[in-house]
């Protein structure tokens, strides 16, 4: 590990042929939406650059990001990326354990100070001094802070690291916070989703290692190449939405005909992700294709947005009131109507009383 190997050398050592290597370069270029000539650029970069070590930390999480990642739809890409990023440290995937494993972290800091990528899956809980996530005798948040202070850049995998996800949902007993709330002095790229799509994860890593920088990010720090469109924008059921044809129940005729799931609470219209184009499990399917609405898992705070099965959700009103905009609004407008009617009646009574008393000077 001490010798600075290039990506290409590392791959060859893992038994990947040059033919497979070039295929991977073309595939990556296509996956990233780059022009064909970039396949050569990627190949050249991988042949000449020393490979960047990646440290993959796990905080409070369910490991679904890793599960997704290792199931990258193109096995070739997964294989190559796994050897390519030289996962020097990953609690779930590495062979080392205990003190040996923790030593790798210190070695990485020594050898590659300021030069490695920190991939964070899950997030740190802050309550009780971080005791809710304890690794190697230390709170996770300390480990995260130490590694982050020496890394080059951070990838926030999944909705946990990007937004907080389920452990940060109300009332958030452990005070779990996304990475960007703890680490403020390093560039962070968010790759949200619960989990993110495998090809999106490999694509982001490939881009960063090839070009030595983040892909173009949007306002919220997500790579534009995968998160600049809503699932709704490329949904194959979009024609039914525009036509006004909706599934009303999961067992009705509309459901059988594949109508739009908006009325069933599909969050596609407000969810930025690449599910409707890349799909899941090697392009096999995705939630809407399987007949269920999108939950909006790649959006901030999606657990606290109310029902997954309603298009109009609970508002997060300060004070913990849980009610939909329509309920609150209906009550307000109804109260206004009743108030107006009552006031009108009172006005008439007051007016006629004044008149019978001899009238006021104004009339």
């Amino acid at each position, binding site marked *: 590990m001490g010798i600075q190997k290039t990506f290409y050398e590392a791959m060859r050592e893992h038994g990947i042929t040059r033919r497979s290597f070039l295929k991977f370069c073309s595939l990556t270029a296509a996956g990233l939406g780059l022009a064909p000539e970039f396949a050569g650029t990627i190949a050249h970069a991988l042949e000449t650059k020393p490979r960047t070590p990646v440290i993959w930390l796990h905080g409070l999480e369910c490991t679904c990001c890793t599960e997704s990642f290792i199931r990258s739809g193109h096995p070739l890409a997964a294989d190559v990326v796994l050897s390519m990023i030289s996962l020097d440290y990953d609690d779930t995937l590495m062979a080392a354990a205990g003190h040996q494993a923790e030593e790798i972290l210190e070695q990485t800091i020594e050898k590659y100070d300021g030069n490695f990528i920190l991939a964070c899956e899950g997030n740190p809980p802050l309550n009780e001094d971080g005791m809710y996530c304890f690794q190697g005798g230390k709170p996770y948040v300390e480990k995260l802070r130490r590694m982050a202070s020496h890394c080059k850049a951070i990838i926030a995998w999944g909705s946990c690291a990007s937004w907080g996800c389920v452990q940060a949902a109300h009332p958030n007993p452990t005070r779990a916070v996304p990475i960007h709330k703890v680490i403020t002095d390093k560039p962070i790229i968010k790759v949200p989703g619960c989990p993110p799509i495998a090809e999106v994860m490999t694509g982001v890593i490939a881009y960063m290692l090839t070009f030595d920088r983040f892909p173009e990010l*949007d*306002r*919220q720090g997500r790579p*534009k190449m995968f998160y*600049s*469109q*809503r699932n709704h*924008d490329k949904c194959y059921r979009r*024609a*039914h*939405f*525009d*036509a*006004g*044809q*909706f599934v*009303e129940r999961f067992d009705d005729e*509309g459901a059988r005909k594949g*109508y739009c799931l*908006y*009325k069933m609470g599909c*969050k596609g*219209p*407000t*969810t*930025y992700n690449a599910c409707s184009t890349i799909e899941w499990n090697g392009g096999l399917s995705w939630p809407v294709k399987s007949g269920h609405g999108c939950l*909006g898992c790649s*959006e*901030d*705070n*999606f657990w606290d*947005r109310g029902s997954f099965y309603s*298009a*109009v*959700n*609970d*508002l*997060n009103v300060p004070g913990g009131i849980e009610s*939909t*905009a*329509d309920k*609150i*609004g*209906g009550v*307000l*407008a109804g*109260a*206004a*109507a009743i*108030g*107006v009617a009552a*006031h*009108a009646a*009172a*006005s008439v009574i*007051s*007016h006629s009383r*004044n008149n019978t008393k001899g009238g*006021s000077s*104004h009339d």
Partner: protein
Amino acid sequence: MNSNVASGPRDPVGQQAVYVFEAPVRLWHWLHTFSFLILAVTGYLIAHPLPSPIGEPSDHFVMGNLRLIHFISAYVFAIGFAVRIYWAFVGNKYSREIFYLPIWKAKWWKELLFEVKFYLFLTKDKDSTLGHNPLAQTAMFFLNTLFTFFMIGTGFALYGQGLGDGSWADRMFGWIIPLLGGGQAVRNWHILGMWIMLMFAIIHMYMAARADIMGRKSSVSAMIGGWRLFRDE
């Protein structure tokens, strides 16, 4: 640029009519009203779609048309409001009333208190203001003016999601989406905003009609012809 008739004394004894609402203000008022009504109805139907039409999707465009009408009305609503803001600078003093509350004036607070008492039937005197009375002005400022800004902001932010990343709406209003916690939250607040404006509209219509019938100054006709008539004999 004060109109010479309207700059008269606060209590116009003997003055029968004051030109309060200039033509652009009146035009905006009705554009605002009708575009809001269309927006409210189409918006409600976007959140709660109609029953599905039968047949091929290529034969129908129900949601498409609803959204189109919603967006066109939204442009009328927003551009109308932009022109109205311009008019607040060049129009008469009443044209500015809905954009600020003169909370630094003791007299204004006194009149506000009076209006509250008046509508609670606690006093039998009648108000002496020419334009909006302070209570009406307060309601107008918070429930109409601020919510119009809010609805235009959240509306165009959501519109920008459809237009796409980098579109004008996304660049100008897209920052609102993370601020309110994501697209779904913005949607819900946008819906609540509609209900609050509707609530305002109900109260506003009642107050205007009541002022016409029972008060000393004309209200509904003033927003049509511009002249406010007084019934002081």
